[in-house]
């Protein structure tokens, strides 16, 4: 279905399995908990039993005295906060003075075995004076609410007010104006690997080595230095295999610092493996979001104005909050041409685990509301949903009103592909009872053009080493977390040099060895690290070509490397094998080390308005999808029959991996749309297991037909853009639109669980009966 959907070059592009795939299928891949920990102590965390309160007593003396306990740490052992933005680091690894959510770490133990560590937890005396706790945005914003953080009145972490274009003029020009509210439940990454960290402190050398699940090793490195008051050069952070991330491990997590604190206190090695419940409590995912959206549209489906209000329940600490609430507004732009846009965003503190970044960061709930309302208005105007989307396309290259660069734009082709593949025109309006089709579009950034931790350095650095063995080793800080970024890097290097893939080795994410990288977030690796890798490979190729030219007594510009052979012109007369050229080059150079970099230019880094950098990228991916559903009106069960999705990823460096990413992101959107939500009872997570947090199983998962659209982005590596996030946000609205098509009900809430669908059906029946009764009475 998909390989032939790619318009390939000649010869056809290879579908490359992951370069670390064999280790995964034979069980040899070592994740953090698999690392050698025979001599490690076992770490355990004592967590707050209440949602909000002041710590009156924290007495660890009995725990410390227990035989087999080697170290105990509390908030007294670390008076530095950590977080994401320098202006918003308000979280301690272990609570100091006050706890703000149920499950917040309060103390930690390192002991000789798990049993002892757990017994020691029970010996800690903790007394807390409870404060009023808030579990909804409204409650936290109430006038008399206790503040979670003294410097944040109203418990508002951040307000955003952006306006572009003349909003009044826009609505005045509309033939139809509609305003609706939407509510999207909080969801979680639920990566299958529970959180884990292995920290070793060498008291003789004064050095700390941490192997952990981080997607952004260098940032953890900096936070460890900050929180442990250590010289950064004495720290090393190594990424083992990682069992999924999806944003869960983008920010430094409390348990990672706690494990390091324990290792130092114990002067040894500590393994901390969190339970699934603790992994859920650590959270950092997509917040519960309330949305009010108003759109203006003319009779032809052209949008005239958009007014959006978003309230995100951010949890107890800042984390990524400011970025998330900015994304929710800025990514209204960049997909359609809307003449006027007003955005008001509110990020609220509440007594729940902190939210953070999750696949489609900030854009998903906004996109959901937008695509649902557009569809409903199209229906009122008797316009086809595809027609309405086509009426609002952008023309690239362009700059949006909020100063985002659009350099390539394949949404029109995505629409064509899924409309055709799903046989939309033949089937829409002719579906049997209970069955429906829905569609929606979405987009996402290929990395933040202004990094979150801005230093002015290049956005990515890749080192290549070529040595006596003829192997090319790529050193990158970029974390392969299963998305296949190391494979992408190997392909980019091999293609640029025109050498076999087997000759390339990738060493990733070890802060002692690999150059700093901003990490695996905002789908930046392919675009930024890919470009840096190609830059390095081109420089290496130039060096080898120069050597070959000398040997061949030709001009360098006449020499090329084709399939590991350096030749002049067509190569019929004189040619040199790769190994000979490497040997000759080493005589001049010794072992060759070459650096490639990539930098997003200032003009790509967003607008000058406050928060204008968030959403800025060198390349947006675009997606359109059609979802077919079957709704059982007796149970409220929504079943997804099939999905057709097209993604403009610029160029599929590895079509196999691109398909995998599209399918995975669409499916994750399906989970949010159908069944996934976190729920808390007085702050106690009611979802914190794989049974209660209902992600779709293989039984609920439909065929997902993928189509790759290639717009050959002018700045992307080999023309590529991101492929891992862009298709996610389109699924929830496409599903809700399909449900509307099937049973005529417009759901306001995500997920579309059977109880919500039944409530809506019952309400409709009641209203129908009432109308009937009123009519009969009159």
């Amino acid at each position, binding site marked *: 279905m998909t390989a032939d959907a790619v318009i390939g070059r000649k010869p056809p592009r290879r579908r490359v399995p992951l370069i670390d795939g064999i280790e995964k299928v034979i069980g040899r891949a070592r994740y953090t908990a698999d690392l050698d920990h025979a001599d490690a102590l076992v770490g355990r965390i004592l967590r707050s039993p209440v949602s909000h309160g002041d710590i009156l007593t924290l007495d660890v003396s009995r725990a410390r005295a227990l035989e087999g306990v080697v170290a105990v740490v509390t908030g007294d052992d670390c008076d530095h906060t950590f977080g994401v933005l320098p202006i918003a680091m308000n979280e301690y690894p272990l609570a100091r003075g006050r706890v703000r959510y149920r499950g917040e770490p309060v103390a930690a133990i390192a002991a000789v075995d798990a049993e002892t560590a757990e017994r020691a937890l029970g010996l800690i005396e903790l007394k807390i004076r409870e404060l009023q706790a808030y579990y909804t945005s409204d409650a936290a914003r109430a006038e008399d609410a206790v503040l979670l953080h003294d410097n944040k009145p109203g418990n508002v972490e951040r307000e955003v007010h952006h306006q572009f274009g003349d909003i009044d003029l826009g609505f005045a020009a509309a033939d139809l104006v509609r305003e609706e509210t939407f509510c999207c439940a909080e969801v979680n990454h639920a990566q*299958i690997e529970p959180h884990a960290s292995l920290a070793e402190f060498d008291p003789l050398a004064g050095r700390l080595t941490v192997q952990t699940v981080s997607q952004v090793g260098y940032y953890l490195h900096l936070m460890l230095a900050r929180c442990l008051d250590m010289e950064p050069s004495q720290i090393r952070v190594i990424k083992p295999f990682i069992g999924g991330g999806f944003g869960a491990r983008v920010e430094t997590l409390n348990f990672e610092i706690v494990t390091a604190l324990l290792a130092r206190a114990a002067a040894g090695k500590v393994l901390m493996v969190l339970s699934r419940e603790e992994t859920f409590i650590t959270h950092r995912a997509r917040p519960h979001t309330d949305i009010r959206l108003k759109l203006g549209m003319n009779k032809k489906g052209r949008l005239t104005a958009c007014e959006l209000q978003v309230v995100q329940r951010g949890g107890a600490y800042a984390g990524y909050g400011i970025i998330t609430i900015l994304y929710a507004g800025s990514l209204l732009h960049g997909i359609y041409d809307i003449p006027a846009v007003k955005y008001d965003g509110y990020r609220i503190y509440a007594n729940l685990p902190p939210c953070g970044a999750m696949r489609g960061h900030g854009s998903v709930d906004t996109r959901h509301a937008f695509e649902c309302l557009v569809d409903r208005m199209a229906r009122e105007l008797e316009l086809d949903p595809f027609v309405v989307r086509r009426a609002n396309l952008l023309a690239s290259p362009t700059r949006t009103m909020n100063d985002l660069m659009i350099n390539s734009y394949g949404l029109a082709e995505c629409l064509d592909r899924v409309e055709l593949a799903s046989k939309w025109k033949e089937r829409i309006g002719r579906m049997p009872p209970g069955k429906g089709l829905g569609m929606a579009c979405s987009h996402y950034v290929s990395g933040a053009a202004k990094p979150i931790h801005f230093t002015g350095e290049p956005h990515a650095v890749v080192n290549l080493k070529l040595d006596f063995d003829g192997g090319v080793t790529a050193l990158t800080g970029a974390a392969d977390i299963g998305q296949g970024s190391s494979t992408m890097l190997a392909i980019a290097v091999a293609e640029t040099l025109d050498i076999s893939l087997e000759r390339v080795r990738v060493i990733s994410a070890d802060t002692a060895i690999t150059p700093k990288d901003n990490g695996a977030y905002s789908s930046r690796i392919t675009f930024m690290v890919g470009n840096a890798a190609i830059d390095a490979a081109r420089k290496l190729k130039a060096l080898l070509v120069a050597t070959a030219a000398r040997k061949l007594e030709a001009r360098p510009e006449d020499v090329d490397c084709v399939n590991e052979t350096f030749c002049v012109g067509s190569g019929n007369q004189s040619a040199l094998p790769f190994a000979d050229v490497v040997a000759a080059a080493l005589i001049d150079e010794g072992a060759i080390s070459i650096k490639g970099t990539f930098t997003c230019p200032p003009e790509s880094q967003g607008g000058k308005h406050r928060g204008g950098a968030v959403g800025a990228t060198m390349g947006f991916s675009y997606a359109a999808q059609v979802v077919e559903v079957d709704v059982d009106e007796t149970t409220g069960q929504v079943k997804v029959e099939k999905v057709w999705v097209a993604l403009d990823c610029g160029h599929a460096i590895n079509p196999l991996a691109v398909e995998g990413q599209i399918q995975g992101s669409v499916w994750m959107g399906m989970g949010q749309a159908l069944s996934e939500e976190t729920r808390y009872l007085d702050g106690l997570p009611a979802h914190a297991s794989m049974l209660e947090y209902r992600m779709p199983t293989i039984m609920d998962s439909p065929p997902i037909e993928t189509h790759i659209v290639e717009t050959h982005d002018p700045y992307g590596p080999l023309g590529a853009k991101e492929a891992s996030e862009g298709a996610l946000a389109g699924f929830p609205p496409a599903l809700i639109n399909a449900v509307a098509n099937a049973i005529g009900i417009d759901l306001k809430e995500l997920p579309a669980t059977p109880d919500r669908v039944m409530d809506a059906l019952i309400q409709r029946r009641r209203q129908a009966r009432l109308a009937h009764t009123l009519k009969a009475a009159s």
Partner: protein
Amino acid sequence: MHAPGPESKKRLLRLRLNGRWREDAVLETDLLVDYLREVARLTGTKTGCDGGECGACTVLVDGEAVPSCITLAVRCGGRSVETIESLATQGRLSRLQRAFHEKLGAQCGFCTPGMIMAAEALLRRNPAPAEDEIRAALSGNLCRCTGYVKIIESVQAAMGAAHDR
């Protein structure tokens, strides 16, 4: 280090692990997954949940797929236990391993050992399962990366395929 208490009640477990008989002292309360990972040092078998929910720990006991995180090690006395480490022999991937690798049935790879072992049990008892039989056999194994599309394709590719030569 503190000394183990006098109450330590380990018994001898004798089982065939990946084709070889071995004996180890275990507690009656030790779970099979912990025995495999901590005693036998076979870390291919993963723990993804707090008990019996995700399937990452799936191994074969006498050829049947079981979650090793809710199986007591002592229950495997005298029985044959197979883990992901047993499938590749003499440098050859099994048909399922090759298919999961080539078809991208594994992304992050954390659910993969359990997924492959569950599929292995299926193909042994049913060499040519229909798609709904594949789905039913893998319904206790959660994956967060693939959306399952390429997992189903991987199992189908492995069906009937001979071991890699």
